[in-house]
């Protein structure tokens, strides 16, 4: 009986516990449902997360506009529209049309004529119709609670209107603004995903926003076709927040709408917080309303506004350049005509240390001043000074704060910036050709892509027409109309060949649907060369290397033809284009399609044949070749030797006439720089000697007078490298001269642990080192050190420190027992040093 009672009690208790556990999910309360998360978002937006204490069950919940609505139930899985990203091609569950399930044959240029004519007409129409601004409020706020229904209604309507799905019908369809709005709505649902749209509609103003946004063709077009649309679902949530704050009336003001949309898009893309997004919007919107921005801001398009409203470091706080308070300070205190922002860094003193001796890289540098400058970054640096990073940010954020496009960018060991004056981008505080922009649309940070972005969106309506055709192609793909989808992609990239994302998307589709279609890949290759390749060399070469060659090369059986195609890429380009760029990844991609050593040799022969005739590229191809050899697996060293010989032969064929002298000098300079960086002693010496033979005039006739140390100059047959970033490599052969008796020239800079490094032929017992600078009397405030190593990795310091005599530094190592294969000279501190004229290591090579 007792046992039974215990069992009964236990069972009752378990039921009670289960009841408690399940109660909230079976009978959810209003408060718990106020927690809303956006699906498919990395950083979900969570609002009003209260813990329900059940104390208000009997209260009447006020269901006014500001309350969160109940999450609608999920639609059945097969009806959901998944979020489409740039890499995937989802298909709806629709019957397959056999006539459309074919890859159309590759078309020649003549076959595009009619379609391209239609595209031109579409471009003209877009321009005319923009002024009229088409609106259609067919879908009311409540309709957006069921985005799938809207999607399928529109999809059916579009397909039925497209009729037989040939080029003419599709392009005629596109000319009607109502049809374009339908396509834009479908595109938006696909980009965000229907579940996310549903989540947006559960927000207080979500349905209203969706109805408002999706009734306005211009707004939709600007949102969808003015740059990347990453995290669209988050962008819609942000836009809903702003819509809730300013209301429909204010969002009718074109500039406010532009600021709101671009801020929401950029903050969603970057994954920045909602609070910062609101502050950024307020900053630009209020500044504009108060007439505090540069009037040029009024004419910006959506894409270029994104550079402004999407500027980095948005949070408030000391050190952040994009905080509202810092932007406001720049806006009010550095108010200049556009042209003068380029160079505004001159308002700051260049300082590595402040007057208290704290390094600019330390936290102490600005610490005591923050309160004084009201935690305003630009102001702090203007008071104390800074180095390249602070200077470049100062100029950049002065322009951005005024509403003008600009971006900071990295260079090796340096920070510079890009600034747009009118429609042209200029470099500011720049010292080197390698730029890595801190603001990009496609994740490609090099200068050429900025130039490409500018050109692409300058042709606004043409690009918009092409973008809309890509959206149509994506839609047709989803509706399993492969033949028509192919046509749309092909016409889109032909009509606007600078459209990097469209080309990428088409290449991805081709890889998916027709990976072995040689003709189609060749057509794409030619489209890139004839279009983007006319002006944007870097982007065109990268498009081929990344997306075309890996698919096209295996289909070409004739290696000679393939090699011709590879070298032809560079033959196609007149010069470097907008800016010098790194050809190594292109050459790497090309050689990676060679399977055997003999194929590699044939390839190398061909590219050297073509590129060594091109003064622009010759130094770069040699640099790449030397780097490639150094990366090859060791093996028996035969292939390395053969490659090296090919490179040296190619170098010796460079002209030495007075006309070609400078070109040869520059080519060899770049190559010897690469050899030093790769620690290739033999190549360094070979190039040095070659340069001396061919360009003797460039070297000193007489060297410095040196009082040496016992033994011989063991460094003369080695290599020498400097830690300094060298912008212009054309004089690098003089680095070799630094090791020779007639001397040379190389920049001396000893930042912290950096300095001059010499690699010798053999390990040697050292007796002394002499360094000759171009200075008559070196300052003696900081000592020079010498370090020695056997392997170039592990270093030990030798005593005594350098003795400074005029412009000469001498290390007397007699009796010190110092021995090694590598020697480097260092100096504490962070100041530029005078150039080096000679560097001589004395000693006796060890026998083994």
């Amino acid at each position, binding site marked *: 009986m007792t046992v039974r009672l215990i069992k009964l009690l236990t069972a009752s208790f378990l039921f009670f516990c289960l009841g408690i556990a399940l109660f909230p999910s079976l009978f959810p309360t209003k408060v718990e449902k106020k927690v809303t998360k956006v699906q498919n978002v990395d950083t979900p937006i969570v609002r009003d997360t209260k813990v329900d204490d059940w104390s208000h069950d009997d209260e009447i919940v006020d269901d006014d506009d500001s309350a969160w609505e109940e999450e609608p139930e999920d639609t059945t899985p097969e009806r959901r529209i998944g979020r489409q990203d740039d890499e995937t091609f989802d298909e709806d569950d629709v019957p397959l049309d056999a006539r459309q399930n074919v890859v159309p044959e590759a078309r020649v240029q003549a076959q595009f004529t009619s379609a391209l004519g239609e595209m031109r007409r579409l471009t003209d129409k877009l321009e005319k119709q923009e002024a009229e601004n088409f609106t259609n409020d067919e879908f009311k706020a409540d309709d957006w609670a069921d985005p799938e229904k809207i999607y399928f209604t529109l999809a059916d309507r579009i397909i039925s209107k497209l009729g037989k799905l040939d080029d003419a019908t599709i392009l005629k369809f596109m000319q009607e603004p109502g049809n374009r709005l339908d396509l834009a709505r479908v595109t938006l649902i696909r980009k965000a995903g229907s579940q996310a749209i549903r989540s947006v509609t559960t927000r207080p103003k979500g349905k209203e926003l969706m109805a408002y946004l999706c009734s306005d063709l211009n707004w939709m077009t600007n949102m969808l076709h003015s740059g990347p649309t990453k995290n669209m679902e988050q962008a819609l949530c942000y836009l809903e927040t702003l819509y809730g704050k300013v209301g429909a009336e204010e969002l009718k003001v074109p500039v406010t709408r532009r600021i709101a949309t671009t801020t929401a898009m950029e903050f969603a893309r970057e994954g920045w917080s909602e609070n910062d997004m609101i*502050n950024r919007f*307020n*900053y630009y919107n*209020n*500044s504009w309303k108060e*007439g*505090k921005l*540069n*009037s*040029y801001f009024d004419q910006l398009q959506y894409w270029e506004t994104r550079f402004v409203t999407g500027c980095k470091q948005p949070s*408030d706080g000391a050190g952040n350049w994009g905080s*509202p*308070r*810092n*932007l*406001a*300070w720049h*806006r*009010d*205190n*550095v*108010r*200049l*005509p*556009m*042209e003068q922002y380029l160079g505004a860094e001159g*308002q700051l003193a260049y*300082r590595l*240390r*402040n*007057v*208290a*001796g*704290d390094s600019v890289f330390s936290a102490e540098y600005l*610490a*005591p*001043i*923050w*309160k*004084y*400058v*009201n*935690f*305003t970054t630009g*102001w702090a640096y*203007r*008071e104390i000074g800074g180095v390249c990073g602070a200077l470049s940010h100062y100029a950049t954020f002065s322009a951005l704060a005024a509403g003008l496009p600009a971006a900071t960018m990295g260079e090796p060991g340096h920070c510079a910036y890009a600034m747009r*004056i*009118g429609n042209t981008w200029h470099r500011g505080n720049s010292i080197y050709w390698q730029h890595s922009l801190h603001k990009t649309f496609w994740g490609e940070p090099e200068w050429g892509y900025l130039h490409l972005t500018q050109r692409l969106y300058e042709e606004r309506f043409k690009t918009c027409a092409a973008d809309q055709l890509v959206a149509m192609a994506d839609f047709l793909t989803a509706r399993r109309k492969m033949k028509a989808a192919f046509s749309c992609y092909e016409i889109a990239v032909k009509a606007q060949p600078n459209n990097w994302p469209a080309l990428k998307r088409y290449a991805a589709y081709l890889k998916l649907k027709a990976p072995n279609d040689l003709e189609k890949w060749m057509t794409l290759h030619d489209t890139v060369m004839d279009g983007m390749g006319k002006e944007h060399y870097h982007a065109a070469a990268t498009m081929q290397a990344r997306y075309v060659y890996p698919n096209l090369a295996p289909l070409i059986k004739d290696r000679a033809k393939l090699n011709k195609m590879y070298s032809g890429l560079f033959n196609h380009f007149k010069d470097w284009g907008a800016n010098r760029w790194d050809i190594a990844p292109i050459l790497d991609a090309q050689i990676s399609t060679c399977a055997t050593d003999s194929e590699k040799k044939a390839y190398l022969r061909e590219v050297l044949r073509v590129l060594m005739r091109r003064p622009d590229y010759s130094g770069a191809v040699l640099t790449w070749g030397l780097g490639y050899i150094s990366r090859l697996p060791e093996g028996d060293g035969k292939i390395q030797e053969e490659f090296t010989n090919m490179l040296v032969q190619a170098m010796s064929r460079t002209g030495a006439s007075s006309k070609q002298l400078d070109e040869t000098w520059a080519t060899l300079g770049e190559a010897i720089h690469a050899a030093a960086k790769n620690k290739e002693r033999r190549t360094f010496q070979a190039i040095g000697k070659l340069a001396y033979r061919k360009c003797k005039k460039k070297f000193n006739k007489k060297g410095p007078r040196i009082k040496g140390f016992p033994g011989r100059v063991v460094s003369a047959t080695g290599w020498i490298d400097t830690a300094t970033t060298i912008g212009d490599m054309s004089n690098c052969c003089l680095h070799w001269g630094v090791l020779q008796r007639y001397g040379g020239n190389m920049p001396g800079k000893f930042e912290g642990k950096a300095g001059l490094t010499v690699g010798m032929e053999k390990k040697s017992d050292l007796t002394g080192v002499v360094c000759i600078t171009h200075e008559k009397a070196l300052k003696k*405030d*900081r000592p020079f050190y010498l370090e020695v190593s056997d392997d170039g990795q592990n270093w030990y310091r030798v005593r005594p420190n350098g003795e400074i005599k005029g412009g000469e530094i001498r290390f007397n190592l007699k009796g010190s027992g110092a021995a090694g294969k590598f020697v480097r000279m260092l100096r504490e501190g962070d100041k530029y040093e005078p150039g080096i004229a000679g560097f001589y290591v004395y000693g006796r090579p060890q026998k083994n």
Partner: protein
Amino acid sequence: MIKNIFKMLALGVLMAVPSFAAVARTYPDALAKTGKNPIVIFIYGANYDKVSEKTYEAFIKKNKIAPYVRQCTFLEMPLYQMPSDREKKDMEKRLGNKRLPGGIRCYPCLAVVDAKGNLRGAVQTPEEMKDPEVALASLKTLVANFYAQEKLIEKARKAKGEKKAEFLLAASDIDLQMPSDVIGKEERKSLEDASALGNRVEFDPLTVVEALQTKDYSSANSYVRNLMAQGGYSKLQRQMIMAAYAGHLRRGGEGRTPASKERLRALYTEMRNIDPNSTYGAYAEGALVIWVEGGKLTDDPIPTEINRVGNTSDDGNSSGSSGNTAMGSTTIPAADDDTPGAVDDDAPSDADFEGDDF
């Protein structure tokens, strides 16, 4: 009698009306006619800036500035952004073959330029340029300083030796940029010959930092006290010397133990008291909070005098400027811990600082 009353009244009216400034139409014209008087140039954005438009309306159209600049030559100078051909012609006409002086950070502004085209000062902060009355007050100070400085430069030109140096230093004490060509070979020699007076011209704060770097505390102290005793340095320069010295002691390194908080307190207080209103006065104040009291500089509402020159709220409304005169000597409260730091036992002994006047 009535005649006399009328005469008096007329005289009174005449005295009440400010004397008018000479107005030039072009920059070369202004440079040519200004003589010993300064040129006041109202430089503004003519085709890109609504703030300039408003300022132009308030300052120029309502004639608020020019009549009160007395002997100065007044010039309006529009700046054009991406100028059209017509605007380019207008600029060429106004500038002739001259260029506006560099060094202006913000437009619209009132620049004070001498007859040789040297920029001597500018009213350019947003809070000054917001209101013609405030701008005028600042401008009058600049103009008064201009005359005072010119007078001293003129005296220096006529004087010789130590006297010359004294005049030059007095001129450089005035809160106005000295023309770059004032200190020529002869002037430099006078300054160098006059005991320690050349220090100000030659001063480079980083040289002090570098000189201190390898010194132990005792010799660092002697070095700094010797510099301070030499004289010739401006207040700002003396603060910079103190900043370098205190930084050297604060960091320690190379076998040196960082100085005690009490010692740092003394040094930073001394540095602040040289001129509490300067940037480095504020620096010292901040240093006292974070390195002596161990506190933090918080983003609390800042004192009124700082608000005046650059407060910016989170929503981006700024009254900001570069203000060199902001922070007073009021103590900034430490956020976390307001108690004075404990004495550091490892700190160098007082013997290391013999002669230091703590």
